[in-house]
């Protein structure tokens, strides 16, 4: 389980400008739909964009704070 603010902070360790939309899919605060907007995605394939996010979440995924994530990444233009 992880609080939304902590999850957002984790993502911002890799993507400091990230705008993070969080949906708690199951009410248990460990299955999330995340919509992340960042300039860092610019010019990257979708796989690379998602790898950036997973890089930020790797520890939380390993220790179970986050169990499952459905990701949507959006390239922020400005």
């Amino acid at each position: 389980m992880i609080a939304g603010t902590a999850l957002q902070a984790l993502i911002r360790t890799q993507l400091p400008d990230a705008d993070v939309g969080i949906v708690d899919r199951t009410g248990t605060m460990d299955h999330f739909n995340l919509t992340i907007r960042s300039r860092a995605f610019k010019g990257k394939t979708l796989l690379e964009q998602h790898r950036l996010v997973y890089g930020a979440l790797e520890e939380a995924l390993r220790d179970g704070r986050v169990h499952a994530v459905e990701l949507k990444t959006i390239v922020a233009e400005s």
Partner: protein
Amino acid sequence: MADNYNDEIEREVAEHKILVYGKGTKDAPRCGFTLETIEFFDSFGYPFEVIDVLENQAKRDALSQMTNWPTLPKVFINGTFYGDTDILGAMAESGELQTTLQDAFGGTALPTKQTINLR
């Protein structure tokens, strides 16, 4: 050790044009995302394989290391890693996936599920 799994994984990836490493099997998926991935590929009509790695942490670690991707399911098409349905769904929307699948299966037209040609 992780490395003897690398050979096993490379062999499996080469053996199947569409390969899903997931939790559970095709008949008994044990994770929502694995089920979603099975249903996703069912909708395209091409043959695909699901390999259950739920209980095999060493193989899961080898896979994560090889693909730099921490979660399951992990999908390979024609030997290339494509992540999961978050990636494949977007590729399907843009039509890129249909081309990738046709290339993988030697340009055969997409087998529509309804018409089974018996030629």
